[in-house]
């Protein structure tokens, strides 16, 4: 019986090294490629016909598109329209990553903080650049809450700076924690099923419920990841 943490192990599939840095193609990278290819296939193949009355696949693709478009419209407004391709890609990539992780013997790349943090860092840097581009040095006002007494600046500014820099961390940690915890739980409870004989029916029933819950969490966490990106984008564009 494999340990509950073995599923997160990164195994190099093809050793590769560029300038002394290990850039091997790993199982994590493989599943990222699979997710990217599946998203691309899903969107292009289902929209290939572009019928006025959508079929089943086109309907699914349109639901995804409208869901993200509405999320962006509600949280950022019309100014966020030009960032739609990025937000949509992000949502689909994270959601497919989460859902692909639910396939037995697959690899959940979103359960690795390195992957999530890379995504979050791109968002963080992008949002900060957008903020400074739109507002110039005025963007520094983000670090001091409006209406607070000047005397509190010495405490509030460091706190606000830390709070600003904690964004990518909280984005990455949340996704990582949700995915990791869920998969460990599935594995541990799954281990009980075989261990305790006929009583294993009980953990099996529990496992069934948790699996459903995990599917929900997979979609929900992709949603949370994306909506927080939208909110950071809103802050950068409108400054509260």
């Amino acid at each position: 019986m494999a340990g509950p943490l073995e599923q997160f192990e990164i195994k190099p599939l093809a050793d590769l090294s560029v300038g002394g840095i290990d850039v091997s193609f790993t199982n994590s990278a493989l599943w990222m490629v699979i997710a990217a290819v599946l998203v691309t296939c899903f969107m292009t193949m289902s929209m290939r016909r572009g019928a006025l009355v959508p079929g089943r696949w086109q309907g699914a693709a349109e639901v995804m598109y409208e869901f993200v478009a509405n999320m962006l419209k509600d949280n950022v407004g019309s100014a966020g329209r030009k960032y739609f391709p990025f937000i949509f890609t992000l949502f689909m990539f994270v959601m497919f990553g989460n859902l692909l992780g639910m396939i037995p013997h697959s690899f959940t790349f979103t359960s690795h903080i390195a992957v999530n943090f890379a995504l979050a860092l791109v968002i963080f840097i992008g949002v900060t650049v957008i903020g400074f581009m739109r507002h110039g040095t005025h963007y520094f006002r983000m670090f001091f809450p409006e209406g607070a007494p000047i005397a509190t600046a010495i405490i509030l500014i460091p706190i606000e700076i830390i709070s600003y820099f904690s964004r990518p961390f909280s984005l990455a940690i949340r996704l990582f924690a949700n995915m990791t915890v869920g998969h460990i739980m599935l594995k541990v409870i799954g281990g009980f099923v075989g261990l305790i004989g006929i009583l294993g029916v009980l953990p099996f029933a529990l496992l069934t419920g948790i699996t459903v819950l995990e599917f929900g969490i997979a979609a929900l966490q992709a949603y949370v990841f994306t909506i927080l990106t939208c909110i950071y984008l809103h802050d950068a564009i409108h400054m509260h």
Partner: protein
Amino acid sequence: MTEQYNRLQLSPNVKCVFLHIMVDKSLFFICLGDLLSALSGGVLQLDSPWGAKYVARAFPCDVCKAAKAGFTTMSDDKDRASLEELETKLSAVAHKREEKHSPNRATGKPSQGMAIGMRISAEMIAAVLVGLLIGWALDRVLDTTPWLIVLFVFLGAGAGGLNAYRVAKGYDSAVGLGRAMRERSKQGDED
């Protein structure tokens, strides 16, 4: 809207069913048989042209007869009382429907509550972590170990508390409690 109802002619051969309709908070009675012939549809069709605000219900025929005598005014005290009761019931139904249609982030599924919980915990952990990191880096640069790391862990905890407060208050309108609360109060203002 109102004119349309008044123009409807009430036929004498009323069967057992009578409709009670709320339009702009006033009560109207329409014979179902007339309505059916007028709209050439069913009770189901009532919902679509007038929206979810208007609630249609079927009544037994003694109410039907009493209402036919005065169309919209009911002189009988007993009937009036039952009418008022009905009105409260109807508005409760209408209110329930509206609630069902408007998205409510906080009080929906349990997974929503879990999302808020996870968000708050992640927010607090992340802020302390960032404080730790900044303090450690500054200590290394300024050679002041361990004073700045101590200071920044506390500042990080403060930032974490602030962020958690913001999530709970919904200041960033994300998956928080505050947005749902604000939406509810907005609904209250419109009523």
